[in-house]
């Protein structure tokens, strides 16, 4: 065996591995779908306002008429129904997409892990209220309605492991981190401070729509990631 043969063989195998991995990458569609679903949830996070003693920041929540207790973990009311449907739709699209893509390219990816993560996360969020009850943590954290966002992030992380994609792993961790952050802190306060620094008066503050940044930021991140992955896929072809 010539000295350069193993080195050349290793280099060729590495090129073959990279080429196959790139051909198998198909996460742009599920990531884009969840990005759209997050962004589309923004109207659910708009705060209706009333003037309280002339203070425009005084807000209240409107009863949605959907008060099932099992929806509390998903944000409750209309938001709970939305996230229930969104997670099911996202999981079904992901499973269907990878089955079709595998048949077309000849390289299949088994997505049982991410689908199981979304299903278990959904069931856990819906049933936890019956186990955890009225503890402070449970009513503060899920009450803000961002547990489904965390579940989305966990499923995408499982997908990143299957896809062996570092970029998707980082993005999904960011989504999970953001879900924890907005569950524990009013991120819109940062927006108010920023706007204030740019000279926006208190009366002109977007109090009713500022809370939508909670879902628009991760939605935009996922859409940008999906767009980048789609563009890279097009370039490879």
């Amino acid at each position, binding site marked *: 065996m010539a000295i350069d043969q193993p080195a*050349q063989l290793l280099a060729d*195998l590495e090129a*073959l591995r990279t080429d196959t991995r790139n051909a198998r990458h198909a996460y742009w569609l599920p990531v884009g779908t969840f990005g759209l679903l997050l962004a589309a949830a923004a109207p659910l996070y708009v705060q209706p306002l009333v003037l309280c003693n002339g203070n425009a920041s005084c807000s209240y929540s409107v009863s949605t008429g959907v008060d099932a207790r099992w929806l509390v973990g998903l944000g409750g009311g209309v938001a709970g129904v939305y996230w229930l449907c969104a997670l099911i739709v996202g999981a079904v699209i992901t499973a269907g997409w990878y089955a079709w893509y595998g048949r077309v*390219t000849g390289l299949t990816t088994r997505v049982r892990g991410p689908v199981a993560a979304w299903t278990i996360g959904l069931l856990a969020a819906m049933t936890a209220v019956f186990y955890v009850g009225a503890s402070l943590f449970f009513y503060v954290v899920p009450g803000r309605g961002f547990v489904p966002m965390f579940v989305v992030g966990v499923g995408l992380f499982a997908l990143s492991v299957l896809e062996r994609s570092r970029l998707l792993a980082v993005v999904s961790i960011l989504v999970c981190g953001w879900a924890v952050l907005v569950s524990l802190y009013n991120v819109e306060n940062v927006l108010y401070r920023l706007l204030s620094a740019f000279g926006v008066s208190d009366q002109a503050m977007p109090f009713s729509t500022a809370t939508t940044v909670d879902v628009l930021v991760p939605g935009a991140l996922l859409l940008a990631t999906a767009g980048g992955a789609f563009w890279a896929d097009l370039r490879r072809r």
Partner: protein
Amino acid sequence: MTDDDSPTARLDDTVHQRHRLGILTVAAEADRVDFGYLQSTLGLTPGNLNRHLAVLEEAKLISSHKEFHGRKPKTWIQITKAGHVALAEEIAILTDLVHRHGHIAKPDRAPERSRR
């Protein structure tokens, strides 16, 4: 150095063949690989590829099964646990050889893949 110490003595003849290593490398990257994808990626004739697949299947390094999509038959190849182990061992031995000789090569070019 005795014969047993030499990395080349540890090479498995079944795996240590350029195309069979290619098959295992591609199969290790996906859950299942289509016969047509392997053929176009490795640039082999159907007869040649079938021969290599038969050797690997006999050594229980891969498994294959046929499916029908409509009236069109499709053969799917899946790497087994033993296949993953054999591939990892082969790569480790090759890497060991390269380190012993202090020689690192760069790929001539990425393998051609059919456009889909």
